[in-house]
């Protein structure tokens, strides 16, 4: 069995048998809890960050396969994190799914233009998150 990620900005990862990893980046502990439950249920290795700066540090230590990313966060917001991540070594690999209540054209367009792979609007549930995940991660 091998795992791969493919889509737009993503590069193919090496074939391996390790579970996929996910970094949930959101200042809401409730959102992190809900998302964690869904990702764990899918067999992901899950880590959490409460803002963009913490997430960036964690990515430098271990680049996750997927980042679920809130927009409005203290210290460093989601868009700033995304820009920094894509400039970081190996930072083009993770599939980034924005997950936010911001639903307007301007936000969606800026997220995509700065390298987001997908965009999930809150509130989300298991079904809508998995649908977006299916767009960026292919499990074989």
């Amino acid at each position, binding site marked *: 069995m091998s795992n791969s990620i493919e889509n737009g900005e993503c590069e193919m990862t090496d074939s391996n048998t390790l579970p996929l990893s996910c970094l949930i980046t959101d200042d*809401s*502990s*409730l*959102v992190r809890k*809900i998302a964690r*439950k*869904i990702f764990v249920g899918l067999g992901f290795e899950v880590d959490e960050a409460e803002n963009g700066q913490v997430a960036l540090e964690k990515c430098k230590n271990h680049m996750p396969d997927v980042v679920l990313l809130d927009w409005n966060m203290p210290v460093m917001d989601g868009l700033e994190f995304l820009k920094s991540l894509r400039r970081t070594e190996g930072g083009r690999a993770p599939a980034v799914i924005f997950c936010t*209540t911001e*639903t*307007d*054209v*301007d936000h*969606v*367009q800026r997220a*995509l*233009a700065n390298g987001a792979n*997908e*965009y*999930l*609007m*809150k*509130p*989300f*549930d*298991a*079904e*809508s998150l998995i*649908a977006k995940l299916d767009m960026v991660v292919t499990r074989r």
Partner: protein
Amino acid sequence: MTIQLQEAVNARSVADSALATMQRLEIPPTPANYAIWYEYHAGMSPNLQRTIDVLISNKTAIDESTLLDLYSTFFSSAKEAQTVRETSMLALQTLQDIASVADSARDEAHRFGAKLRGIASKDLGETLDNLKNLIENLVLESKKMAGRTEYVGLRMRESAGKIEALERNLKDAIRDSSLDGLTGVANRKSFDATIRKTAGDAMNSGEDLALLMIDIDHFKRVNDTWGHQTGDIVLCHLARTLQHAVRGGDHVSRYGGEEFAVILPRTDGQAAVNVAENIRQALAREPLHLDLDPPLTPITVSIGAACYEPGDPLAEWVGRTDAALYSAKRAGRDRVQLN
């Protein structure tokens, strides 16, 4: 086939797809909207395509403000000339189609067709203003036509699907997009947008969020006994009562038929029941006085209440509220039931 002809054929098929999508999404036929959907189907701008796909896949309403944002974001002045040229062609083809269909109809439609052909044969130029005028004229003529077809009884409706779509879009554009026409409270569309917004906020903040579903008891009997006009008065009376009985941040809407919904931010189950009881009692306290024979029986409502569980699908929450409403009905009506 010459290159020009091939290009024309391609542009035509893109134009048809664009029109079909606009009809499906009920988007008003303005020059800016044509430009957006033409480009979307032509695949000239991957960013525009992806942005629209994201909006649609997240069930975001493609309403007037979203369309305005799309236009201002993706149509810089540098690209305008090209877009206008392509859109002009599409508009021209459409006008000619409608004109030829209209030609085959009689009387009023004949004049309509001639007018359209007159517009279509004008030199378009390549400025946005010209295009705007062109389509505004088309819309104006379609609008006049919509009024006339009612009694002239032409085959226009069958033969010109495009005009029918224009009429429908016009009505949609003119009608206030968020209010229920009869009762003046928010409509279903506004309910859908508000429930997503408030649930998204509740998911972020962890604050409570509750929903009430309110259904008039024996409403069919009101309509059958005293007529639909009385039924409408009852609906308006309930809408007014709801607006007075709820609190500042609550959102009252007509969910459909004789069913109303109230979205209650920062409200737990017990507080939601209190608001529902307020509504029920206000209705009993201030009955509707109408001079009818037989006299109108007192209007009562059954109310279901349920709290949002972040992470659950919205449909599941609405379903639980509805289930509470029906258990209130089964328990004898004129009562509140918490899920």
